[in-house]
């Protein structure tokens, strides 16, 4: 079985390729935007003598590159997405490229669609949690966001991307599996999710407090993706992906300070954050956007309202956390400490 991994050179992508190899996949096409990560990827395959990594370079914005990418594959793991940049760029890199990929799949000849499985790596950001109340439990049946325009562009574009996949699935009849990871972390990733807080100038505003963080260590997340890609019962299903022993935002920040570096942080309780958001929102309206609306009541309720999380469905598929949270955090902080020392 030939497998296509888009975004294979990214932080999560490299872990997914490694887990695919560990699960015995031997024919993997890695779609990459640049050649920078080629050596790293090839090194992953060295312990697996029977495995073959085909590195395919291009840009999914190009329909021709998409056609080349999907040629002969029966399993597609779509990880590529716009993570930063202007809103238009993020929509182009998450939604337009997804449409190109799906169209290329649909156009193929000689590959039956019902025997093709597509795995989309979506995001927790697609849930609409602002109205659920604090401590609400988030599972796969939680409502999707119905006001994406009030959210950050990443969440908005991921929601649109997921809708697009379900629309094409209905039309084309391929098997679709959707995974919604929480905050993916690990060596190669960033230090802080917004759920912990925001760095504004020299000060880190700690906003998460005692909220649980839906963290997913990259190796554990990759394991979930590969497992869902392989499992016959996963077709047509959605899975939330996060680890079992979730840290609170306070614990994560405390350990970061202990193991990586001292940073100046100010704890802002939820009620204070709401007051600040109310003021900033009113000012944003009155001043016609002189300061950006990065902190609104809606965004505060979404990011820092505090939810609990449920990965029962993923466990039912047979998923087990490969790296325990204390080890995962230790590995991540060691990486961040070394990065910090380099700078």
């Amino acid at each position, binding site marked *: 079985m030939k497998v296509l991994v888009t975004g294979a050179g990214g932080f999560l992508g490299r872990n997914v390729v490694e887990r695919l190899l560990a699960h015995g996949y031997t024919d993997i096409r890695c779609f990459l935007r640049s050649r920078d990560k080629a050596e790293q990827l090839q090194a992953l395959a060295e312990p697996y003598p029977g495995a073959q990594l085909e590195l395919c370079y291009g840009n999914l914005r190009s329909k021709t590159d998409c056609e080349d990418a999907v040629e002969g594959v029966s399993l597609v793991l779509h990880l590529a997405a716009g993570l930063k940049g202007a809103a*238009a760029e993020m*929509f182009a890199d998450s939604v337009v490229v997804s449409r190109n990929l799906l169209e290329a799949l649909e156009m193929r000849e000689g590959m039956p669609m019902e025997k093709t499985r597509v795995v989309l790596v979506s995001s927790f950001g697609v849930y609409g949690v602002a109205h659920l109340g604090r401590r609400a439990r988030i599972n796969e049946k939680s409502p999707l966001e119905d006001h994406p325009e009030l959210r950050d562009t990443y969440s908005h574009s991921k929601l649109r991307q997921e809708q697009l996949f379900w629309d094409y699935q209905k039309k084309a009849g391929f098997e679709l599996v959707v995974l919604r990871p929480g905050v993916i972390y690990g060596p190669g990733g960033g230090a802080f999710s917004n759920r912990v807080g925001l760095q504004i100038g020299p000060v880190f505003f700690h906003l998460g407090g005692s909220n649980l963080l839906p963290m997913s260590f990259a190796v554990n997340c990759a394991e979930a993706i590969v497992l869902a890609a392989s499992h016959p019962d996963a077709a047509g299903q959605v899975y939330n992906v996060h680890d079992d022993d979730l840290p609170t935002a306070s614990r994560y920040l405390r350990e970061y300070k202990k193991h990586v570096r001292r940073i100046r942080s100010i704890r802002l309780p939820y009620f204070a954050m709401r007051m600040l958001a109310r003021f900033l929102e009113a000012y944003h309206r009155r001043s016609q956007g002189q300061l950006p609306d990065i902190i609104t009541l809606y965004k505060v309720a979404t990011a820092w309202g505090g939810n609990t999380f449920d990965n029962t469905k993923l466990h039912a598929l047979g998923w087990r956390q490969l790296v325990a949270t204390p080890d995962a955090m230790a590995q991540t902080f060691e990486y961040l400490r070394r990065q910090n020392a380099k700078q």
Partner: protein
Amino acid sequence: MSLKIAIVGCGKIADAHIGEIRKIPSVQLCAVCDLEPIMAEQLAVRYAVPRWYCDLTRLLEVEKPDVLHITTPPQSHLSLTRQAVAAGCHIFLEKPVALRHSDAEAIIATAVRAGRKLAVNYWPRFEAPALELRRLYETGVLGNPVHVESYIGYDLGGEFGLALRRDPEHWVHQLPGKLFQNVMDHVLNKITPFLDDQQPFIKAIAWRGKAGAGELLDELRVIIQGARTSAYATFCAHARPVGQTLRVYGTKNTAHADFAARTVVLERKQGFPSALGRLFPPFLTAKDYLGQGLKNVNSFSHAHFHFFEGMRRLLSEFYLSIEKDSPPPIPYEEILRVSAMMERIFRQVYPEVEA
């Protein structure tokens, strides 16, 4: 009567256009359009624009806008202008105007022939520092301009820089002047009001500022010599901080405008003798900066300190020129002078493209 506005091209810069259009109470944005339906839809949803299209012909037929903002890459500007002007629209065009000077001439001729108005988004010219500098010049405070230095910094790690570095097919790479063509309007259009010569001498050099940063040339220096005024135009991708300045050396005084800090400081002829003449200037300059800082605080408190404040001002003047049937805010000959100078510069730094 409220002008009906539409936008074609739903990329990054369209966000800025919508942001400023919405601040002008006398106009209404009726629709957006992009060949790529996902891009048109996302812009309409994010800004609650009533309707979106992926066919401009249909938009023009149904919406009948008074003004079309063209925010597509410059490769399509001429054909879109022709189509929109034929449908009776006035045109607000994103820079760069066109691929070549001859296309820029054709674009303006199209609008003029049909009795429609056109403006190009030279928004920094309408920022407070540029207006203040022009006032100093027009009121004679500077005297006659002897030399002008226009500088622009560029961050290749920024949103747009990253987008074009990651995508070898990006439309900027298809321009005859590549990265420079997308930016040099803003450098040159600040010089042209002070330049007396229609056909100045131009010498341009360009190079890659950092090894391993790809094939893109990212440093450009231009020397311009008119009959009585000379100028330096600089595009710099590697100096920090990323700034934007304009310095005008006059026969009476010299003025320095900083567009990032929004300040204009006058360097006056010294009247004090000997060592005293070296003692006082820093205090006079500090006083100027204090005054500028307070002015900025005042602008901020009145919510006139937005990033694209100059674009709002330019749009307001453009829409007003349509309503009053008065001359557009940027003279067409200025647009063409900039376009002609750009073409001469790109011929020197990318001779192979011209060949």
